[in-house]
């Protein structure tokens, strides 16, 4: 029977099949860990006297609670609270006690968990990857089955390297045609979520296909898969191809016989005739730079489009929270903060896209712009190319890697009432700080908005940059 990519990856990890009464036991190849969702899981397995079963399949980083400003002259890091510092120390101790590799402070590998995994070649096609974090879907860009789990399940994987699972339904999202210049993976993601709806993917694993998806680089594919959860889907996947194989070649943890592994990875495609429970098709050529107008990620529209008339109380409440008016474009609202970073858009091509817009220009006075690389590797590469200097010269802050303003738990946050254009993934009320108002957009759109001081389509700036 023809099988989907999801079927193929699922099938090869079934330890015990599911029955009507019981879920299946699914083997996990790679377990990524960070400081926020793991402490209670370690406490749980230790209380039961259980060891970490496969420390060699477990890899930890520090990202969420970590300051993005450097340590002071006394060597002390500027943690937001003593509790945040304690949480970081707790992970350091747990990793030391259980022999888990940790990309901690001082490690050249440290980064936001979903930036770091692929970068180190830990994430590979055909794998099952989990993390106590809903944006684990990011790793699906490599043809892995990757999804977020809760802390109890973190404990299950630590103790058994397995999870109890029932198989999800399969949805295919095909984005046809060619993307226009200035349209990035982020714009595709926001267009897809707007099309499916915020909960439209609940219960599904999404496979992204089509010419427009194929044309994305690995970073663009990661951005797209990253936001699958914003449509309610636990996982998003893209079949591996030459782009995938070229991107992973030479990375730290890939198989020794790389070409043999790569040949096998290329078999991980949906067979002709395989059936999906749901199919969605979008015209990629029709996608324009996107931005959100509400407080859910599906409230997206092309930059410059009017805020729609509310169709529900929830919409009305969202528009009121954002301080917008139905029928008016959001491109005249003064922007206070621009954030470039996160596991959605904190990779090198994201920073390049922002720098291309900003080069030789200035952030509008009064706008605070924060650029936070997704990992130490991204920071090194960006600095080697001089991107940090472009940002600093434009008037932006250049920070150390971390989640930062994406989740606003490390001391970097948007003040109450301020309007932010952010390359992160959630525009929920208060996500970027209590009372913060968030517009989600691509790095190029965010950079253009920093210059203009209002939400701005980056296309004109990019054209000028290309002409120069």
């Amino acid at each position: 029977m023809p099988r989907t990519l999801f079927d193929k990856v699922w099938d090869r990890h079934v330890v015990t099949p599911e029955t009507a009464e019981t879920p299946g036991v699914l083997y996990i190849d790679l377990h990524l860990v960070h400081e926020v969702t793991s402490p209670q899981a370690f406490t749980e397995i230790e209380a039961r006297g259980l060891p970490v079963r496969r420390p060699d399949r477990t890899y930890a980083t520090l990202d969420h609670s970590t300051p993005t400003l450097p340590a002071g002259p006394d060597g002390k890091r500027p943690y937001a609270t003593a509790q945040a510092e304690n949480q970081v120390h707790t992970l350091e101790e747990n990793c030391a006690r259980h022999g888990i590799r940790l990309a901690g402070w001082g490690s050249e590998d440290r980064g936001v968990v979903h930036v770091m995994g692929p970068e180190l070649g830990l994430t590979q096609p055909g794998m099952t990857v989990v993390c106590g974090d809903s944006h684990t879907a990011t790793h699906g860009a490599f043809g892995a089955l990757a999804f977020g789990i809760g802390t109890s399940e973190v404990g299950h994987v630590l103790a058994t390297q397995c999870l109890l699972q029932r198989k999800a339904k399969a949805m295919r999202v095909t984005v046809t045609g060619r993307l226009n210049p200035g349209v990035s993976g982020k714009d595709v993601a926001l267009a897809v979520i707007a099309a499916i709806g915020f909960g439209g993917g609940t219960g599904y694993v999404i496979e992204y296909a089509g010419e427009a998806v194929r044309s994305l680089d690995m970073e663009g594919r990661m951005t797209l898969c990253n936001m699958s959860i914003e449509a309610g889907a636990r996982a998003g996947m893209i079949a591996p191809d030459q782009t995938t194989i070229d991107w992973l070649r030479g990375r730290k943890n890939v198989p020794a016989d790389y070409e043999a592994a790569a040949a096998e990875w290329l078999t991980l495609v949906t067979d002709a005739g395989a059936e999906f429970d749901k199919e969605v098709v979008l015209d990629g050529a029709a996608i324009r730079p996107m931005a959100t107008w509400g407080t859910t990620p599906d409230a997206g529209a092309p930059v410059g489009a009017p805020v729609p008339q509310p169709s529900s109380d929830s919409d009305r409440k969202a528009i009121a929270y954002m301080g917008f008016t139905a029928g008016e474009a959001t491109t005249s609202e003064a922007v206070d903060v621009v954030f470039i970073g996160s596991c959605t858009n904190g990779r090198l091509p994201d920073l390049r896209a922002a720098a291309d817009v900003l080069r030789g220009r200035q952030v509008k006075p009064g706008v605070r712009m924060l650029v936070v690389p997704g990992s130490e590797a991204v920071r090194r590469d960006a600095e080697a190319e001089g991107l940090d200097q472009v940002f600093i010269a434009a008037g932006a802050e250049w920070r150390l890697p971390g989640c930062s303003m994406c989740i606003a738990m490390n001391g970097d946050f948007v003040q109450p009432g301020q309007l932010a254009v952010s390359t992160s993934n959630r525009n929920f009320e208060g996500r970027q700080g209590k009372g913060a108002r968030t517009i989600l957009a691509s790095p190029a759109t965010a950079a253009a908005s920093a210059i203009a001081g209002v939400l701005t389509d980056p296309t004109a700036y990019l054209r000028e940059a290309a002409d120069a």
Partner: protein
Amino acid sequence: MSEPFKTLTSRTLTLSQANIDTDQIIPARFLTTTTREGLGKAAFYDWRYEADGSPKPEAILNRIDPTEQRILLAGKNFACGSSREHAPWALLDYGFRAVISTEIADIFTSNALKNGFLPIVVDQAVWDDLAAHPEQPVTIDLEAGEVRRGNAPPVPFKVESFARQCLLNGVDTLGWLQTHMPAIEAFERAHEPETAA
């Protein structure tokens, strides 16, 4: 391991807004804890408290008795967003024991069931009926798999069969998973002969 859940009778509290995300249920700045306990005070924190920490008198969640309204009747796509298990921990510690909605996010459902917090999906007509009778106690009967209200016809609901057994009998999920260890070891021997001991 959570307490068994058999039946619960309580009045409901309606929060009709759609898409109540996990950042509303417990804002991220409360996630720096390293324990599960005491998160009830952070539940819906920004809905309940002013910036200076004083309670908002108009907030419904500050006006109810959580021991009397233990069932949340929430708008569509409840608990979307993050995988934080702190969300069910906070709801339980605040006093809720179940949520009824027309759509509930996947990861939250899985987290909630592992903690003895029951997520129930009903259709819109049933939801509207429950919302129209906030004064009347509702009984959630997990054994029978139905929600009952007064003389209204009982409404069946589904919970994943294994999670249901775990809730009814207080089964320890991790302990049950561990009984599969021989199969897990065999799987590893078959798939990674080079690393198998």
